[in-house]
């Protein structure tokens, strides 16, 4: 049985595809510094670990090791009882309280999921439910972690309120508690 022509066909196709990729990369321009834009996220002051803050709600509902307390996730949540921001101070899982650096990293991580969309929603008082940080846990969009909140519960109200700039600290306090 002669197989030569088929093998040659595969190789030439692969070579052609590789060449096309190289050509596209060579023709691509690097981003200009003028392409930068500033993201207007929800109030970072409300994203704290103080009572009624929003950070503990994300820690509690999203930050376990098997979910977003994991470096394999694009959305990473650092917390006292989950993933720790690498440090030289011996701050390990289960140890010291969530650090200011970790709160800051959590905020940036949440904003960075969809920076343009977040910017649009916050600046234009847009629909919070257009954001993945709500669509996923509400299962409006497929979420490997399943349903994490339902519309109207404390967790959903806390995060939606934060995005809208109307945080209810009592609701967020309740949402951060284990049942």
């Amino acid at each position, binding site marked *: 049985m002669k197989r030569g*022509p088929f093998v040659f066909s595969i190789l030439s196709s692969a070579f052609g595809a590789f060449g096309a990729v190289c050509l596209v990369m060579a023709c691509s321009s690097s981003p200009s510094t003028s392409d930068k834009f500033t993201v207007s996220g929800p109030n970072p002051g409300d994203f704290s670990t103080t009572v009624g803050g929003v950070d503990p709600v994300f820690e509690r509902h999203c930050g*376990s*090791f*098997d*979910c977003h307390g994991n470096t394999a996730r694009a959305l990473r949540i650092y917390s006292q*009882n989950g993933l*720790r*921001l690498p*440090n030289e101070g011996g701050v390990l899982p289960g140890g010291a309280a969530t650090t200011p650096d970790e709160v800051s990293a959590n905020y940036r991580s949440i904003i960075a999921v969809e920076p343009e969309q977040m910017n649009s929603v916050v600046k234009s008082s847009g629909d919070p439910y257009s954001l993945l940080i709500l669509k996923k846990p509400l299962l409006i969009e497929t979420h490997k*972690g399943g349903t994490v909140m339902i519309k109207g519960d404390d967790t959903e109200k806390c995060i939606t309120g934060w995005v809208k700039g109307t945080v209810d600290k009592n609701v967020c306090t309740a949402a951060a508690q284990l049942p």
Partner: protein
Amino acid sequence: MSTLANTSRFGVVLVIAALAACGLDPIHDGAVAAQGKETTGVPIGPFHRAGQPCVVCHEDHGPASNVVFSVAGTIFAGPTGTVGVDGATVQMTDSKGSKFEKATNCVGNFFVKPSEWDPAFPILVRVSKGAAKRSMKTPIGREPSCGNCHVTIINDTNQFGSMAHIYLFAGDDPAGPAKDCPVNPDLGL
């Protein structure tokens, strides 16, 4: 020529489909291989591989798919040492309010089969024995193996992303290790 090429392509597609159907998953295969060989003198069964992530193998596509677990793990006595706790109760509550309890065996292993309880994650877990009680401070999002997050060895590689093994007491189990256990409940780690 055209017929020959099409036949060959069809063959390639069939081979790929067959491999996919066999569950070719290098990540999972790597996780299974990382568990290493069985400990000499510990037979395959309810007392083996204490402290390891049970459901890496005991799942639908794992090498122990004949015995699938929905939740499984090991409870140790204290924060230092790795002596399993016999007769600890693991209380679990799922997101729909369903509750289930399971006792550990003499090496500290416990395992729940889906036919017994098939939880809707996330779940909350509490462990107790006598007056000693410990509750997890976070829910378990979807991980059925305690040992995937709670590891027996913390090192430079995993120190920021893993929790130490689960323990129930401040030190040794006041009741002491199980006396009639068919295998040594002390992993010696």
